[in-house]
């Protein structure tokens, strides 16, 4: 792998023709692999990378139906944080955040991790109580988190409206300073390039059409580019997890929903932090390009079409302008949707399946991007060792039959 550096950029700048090598090859699939990862998004590529790097697996393919990074990796609002309530989640997301912190140098690819701080706003007494609980639990887990009063929020986000004379005034916020955003495409590309350099075959435009399972053991896959034998198969295809699992006769406790996002036209820096509000339900940050990147809740119905309904956008806009009245004259430039696979407890499934040699990593719901390296790291361990790592051991498929759920829906609605 040709290393990227400022010196090589300079040398190329002086060259008659820039001479940058391919970031990744475009191989045809071979007839057999030790491990086949289905899904060339961030999680799948990270899994392949860590399988090669940490576990010495040399014969790996990543199969991608379309173009790598084209699913939720390239459609999310790029927020990274690890401020989760329950120990199980906190540890997993914190592992991911720590990996993120070193990822640009690890991959020699600038993923533009910008730890500009993530604020979660409180708008009523119930929010404040929940926030107090969360922040305390997070801190006792050794993860940074702090509470802000409205003036503290204003100091972090000068453009926000902390007036009490609005429908749902801001009463406070929690702040994770190590949280922030990263360039989502770069995460996929960086992992792809680094995995490719370690010999992983990344095969794009290769759709899996069937899984060969004999005596409850996976033998291989049927694809649009031929049959591929595999000793182990990892399914990491958010948005289509249930479809793939069904090919092995598995029924997942997952609902697939559209989740939409949008950006404004680019403007000069006006918002530094990431701001999230559950109560008025909108979250946003400003990209390095200057676009406000805005998201909200899922569409209520189930769908595999990567498009949603406009009412969701309308709803989030009202919420946004409550918080940021001065954004009213800005303009929505682009709007899109992805499909999120949601588990009943809003936590992912990362682990083994009843089919031997078949592993699944899915159900990240609306928040998978932030987990990408941690998810890949733990899933690689699970595949290589045929047993979960302590980090993902609680995130089994069986927990839905045992009841050992990890409910991260956040607070239940205030009710009295």
């Amino acid at each position, binding site marked *: 792998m040709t290393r*990227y550096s400022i010196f090589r950029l300079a040398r190329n700048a002086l060259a008659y023709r820039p001479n940058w090598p391919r970031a990744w090859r475009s191989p045809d699939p071979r007839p057999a692999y030790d491990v086949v990862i289905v899904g060339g998004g961030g999680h799948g590529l990270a899994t392949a990378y860590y399988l090669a790097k940490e576990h010495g697996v040399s014969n790996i393919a990543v199969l991608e139906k379309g173009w790598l990074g084209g699913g939720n990796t390239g459609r999310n609002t790029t927020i990274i944080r690890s401020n989760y309530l329950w120990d199980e989640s906190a540890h997993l997301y914190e592992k991911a955040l720590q990996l993120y912190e070193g990822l640009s140098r690890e991959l020699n690819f*600038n993923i*533009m991790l910008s730890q500009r701080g993530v604020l979660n706003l409180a708008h009523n007494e119930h929010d404040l*109580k929940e926030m107090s609980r969360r922040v305390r639990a997070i801190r006792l887990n050794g993860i940074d988190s702090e509470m802000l009063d409205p003036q503290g929020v204003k100091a972090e986000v000068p453009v926000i409206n902390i007036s009490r004379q609005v429908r749902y005034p801001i009463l406070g916020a929690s702040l994770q300073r190590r949280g922030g955003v990263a360039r989502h495409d770069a995460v996929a590309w960086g992992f792809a390039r680094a995995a490719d350099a370690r010999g992983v075959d990344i095969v794009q435009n290769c759709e899996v059409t069937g899984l060969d399972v004999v005596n409850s053991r996976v033998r291989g896959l049927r694809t649009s580019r031929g049959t591929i034998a595999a000793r182990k198969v990892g399914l990491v295809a958010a948005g289509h997890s249930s479809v793939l699992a069904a090919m092995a006769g598995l029924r997942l406790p997952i609902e697939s929903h559209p989740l939409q996002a949008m950006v404004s036209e680019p403007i000069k820096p006006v918002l530094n932090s990431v701001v999230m509000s559950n109560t008025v339900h909108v979250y946003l940050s400003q990209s390095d390009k200057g676009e406000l990147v805005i998201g909200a809740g899922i569409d209520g119905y189930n769908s595999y079409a990567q498009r949603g309904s406009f009412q969701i956008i309308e709803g989030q806009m009202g919420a946004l302008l409550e918080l940021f009245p*001065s954004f009213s004259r800005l303009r929505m430039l682009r709007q899109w949707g992805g499909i999120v696979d949601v588990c009943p407890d809003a936590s992912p499934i990362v682990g083994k399946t009843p089919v031997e040699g078949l592993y699944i990593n899915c159900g990240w719901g609306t928040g998978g991007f932030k987990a990408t390296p941690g998810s890949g790291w733990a899933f690689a361990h699970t595949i290589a060792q045929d047993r979960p790592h302590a980090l993902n051991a609680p995130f089994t498929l069986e927990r839905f039959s045992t009841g050992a759920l990890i409910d991260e829906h956040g607070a239940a609605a205030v009710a009295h």
Partner: protein
Amino acid sequence: MTSQPYRLAEGGVIDRTRPLTFSFNGRRLTGYSGDTLASALLANGVHLVGRSFKYHRPRGILTAGTEEPNALVQLEAGNRSIPNLRATRIELYNGLSAASVNCWPGVRFDAGALIDAVHRLVPAGFYYKTFMWPQGGWHVYERLIRRMAGMGRAPEGADPDRYERTNAHCDVLIIGAGPAGLAAAVTAGRSGASVILADERGQPGGSLPDVASDGDVTGTSWLGDTIAELQSMTNVRMFTRTTVTGYFDHNFLIAVERVTDHLGPGAPAHLPRQRLWRIRTSRVVLATGALERPLVFANNDRPGVMLAGSARAYVNRFAVLPGRRAVVVTNNDSAYEAALDLHRNGVEIAAVADLRAVPVGPAAEAAAAAGLNILRGHAVVDTNGRRRVQAVHVAGIGLDGSLTGPVRALHCDLVLMSGGWSPAVHLFSQSGGKLRYDEMLGAFLPDGSRQHVLCAGAMNGVAETASCIVQGQDAGKGDVPAASEPTASTVDAHWPIPARNRSGEVRQFVDFQNDVTAADISLAVSEGYQSVEHLKRYTTLGMGTDQGKTGNVPGIAILAGSLGVPLPAVGTTTFRPPYDPVTFGAIAGRDVGPLADPVRQTPMHAWHAETGAVFEDVGQWKRPFYYPLASETKHDAVARECMAVRRAAGIMDATTLGKIVLSGPDAVRFLNRVYTNAWGGLEVGRCRYGLMLGEDGMVLDDGVTARLAEDRFLMTTTTGNASRVLAWLEEWLQTEWPELDVYLTSVTEQFATVALAGPKARAILTGLTSDIDVSAEAFPFMSWRGGHVAGFPARVFRISYSGELAYEISVPARHGLELWAVLLRSGPDYAVTPFGTEAMHVLRAEKGYLMVGQETDGTVTPIDLGMQWILSTKKDFIGRRSLARSAMLDPLRKRLVGLRTEDPELVLPEGAQILPTAPSGPPETMIGHVTSSYWSGALRRSIALALVKGGRDRESATVHVPLEGRTARAEICDPRFYDPEGLRLHG
């Protein structure tokens, strides 16, 4: 300087009797009514309008419409400021003030242009390859990069304007009021269908005024007659200044009407600035026309380089000459029409360089006849000029695309280019329609549609006005327009045009706004970013505010060329809404400020507010939190209110609790399924507490349900969950148990409810009713009686959340305030104290009663709460099976306990975490958290409820609660702190 030196003496659709003054970058200029900002600038000879996104290169006006990538301005200042508007789309009004964006100190001398000098260091994607040192360093580099990026600025204050959202329904929605759209509208209108015709411009006619020379069929009489006929049809609505910008499923479309933008800040105050139309239609006719493409040659981005068709529009529509001496470069026939129009109006045409070896088409022949200097098989290969083009370099181009012969320089102040036309298929593609690539036109055309939509006119590749009208008539009838051969001029694609020098310094721009060059595309391809989506994301091609309307097709062509595959194999990126950016305010409509979410108030709200209650938001409701007297703190007020209830009597506004009437013969069966306990034995006149679980066995909601009649029950829910519970019950009834004969009616707002609690409650109630026997024997705990209270028809429920003797009195909502007033003055003997939700929280916590949302968080079962008694073993109910799962029986689940702090004065913060041992440094072992915590005046000490692993099994154990800077110790105890036997309650 002469005013408007480039304005023609006559012609155009401008109104010369209405001159307008405006300012641009502080310079005062004049234009005419009917101008756009762009045409007015050109009339004054201003070409340098902005700077590009990345290299800060000087940029002029490329187009005359929505597709403009270059001429972005900041319109107005202060709270009415708008960034990034296209000068080509701003209708001029008197006093308009605009400024260039993305430049400092100004557009002529821009410090940011330094980056252009080192552009070779910063090719596409350079930032992925550097800025990685040290770890975390990106955040520092990023600050500088962010300052360079962005375009205009957000306003600083709140928006003074108003926006509206409106729904519309029609049989046929026709988008685009050019010849095809007008023909479709008049045809559909004559059929009697309800028609909406929407167009983004201020006047119907589409591009007809741009090409006024296009005579025979369309002479102004057809246009005028058609518009007049449409205006006479009551079933046709014509929306001007209305851009249909989003096409969703089931023929649902979004349009933005710019109601007053063309009037500027002086617009009448009663009008909204913009109106968002949500249109549902049976059928859509797309007559959205076509957009001209640039050619990709070296330094094709200088001010003065313009699309040929746009230059033609400036001459014909606005009577403005975009220059005095022009060079035309084209790969198709359409640019000749522009050349002829300019020529006729006095612009010297230095040459027409036609990439085609054998130019064909009537316009080319006319140009030759007019004596224009036509260079066949020639191309513009470079340009000169810093802030305005001054010369071009022309060379021969062979059939294989390579340059032949000498390079000649031609002086000019204007370059007209045409790379052919791309049908505006954006909305069609948004609708789910498929596209096909037409080799002859070098364009993507609509192919198979997924919704009920027809395409007509130029967007089908049809050029002649007469053919467009025929297609429009077909579409207006509902027929697929006859598959006439595309008549637009065929193109001889040269993407990109080779450069004269090959030193690597060549920059042939594809995306003018984002500074993406042909070399950037080749670089991306060589690095493996070969999917069209990767290309877009790696180079930012087509990601500017214009969304690549002009540059995307050339970019795709260059990608295909670099890959050595045919263009259709590359495909397009997804066309996403909106077609044209939409103002946030218009999307939000009136859902801002006080109308952001409805405020729900009880009939007694006015009294609460007058008395100085502090309110809390509970769902949409405003509830009194506490009622401070003069200088009372929250703590003092809550303590006083609690003591009043414990010692005498208090009243609380309980109107907000959800109330649902269940009626029908199967009501008991239904209740048995949705509640954990059994309901069959409940007699009319009695009430029962019920707990509702989710399918996962977790507590969802609780409340008291009364049996009003044999087949009628009144259920109460918590305030915050009222609508969720109703939806939950309806979902079960409608989707799972349609056979049950039960009807649900929400009556929350039909009744006002006052909770009267305290040892004096019975005496007070006795004085207010003559037809209800309130004696303990006649009216026992957990029963209800109907009658009159204070003269109002009432239902009185003897239930209690405070642990005191208590009644909840419900009267028709209109009597709520009066009832409240009567209760307050119900005799000097008994001081009746109003109490708020916080006192209620304290009182119920003293009793160890659960509060949904506080002791529960979606992970708590009835067993965890010590409420096994409420789980019937004789019937099935929602959540029952989940409770049997192995993890639910784990003795180490978190369960409800009481906590007594070692220091009785210390009130633990709610949410505090509980450790089994003193903290030793993170990560700590957490065994639970404090769910509720208050000062109890009745007990003269603090109390707390908590969920702790192992629950009451740990009773008497000491646990540790880390606080800010110290750790408190507390003992686990029975959560029933006050009157555990319930003597007061039953008294």
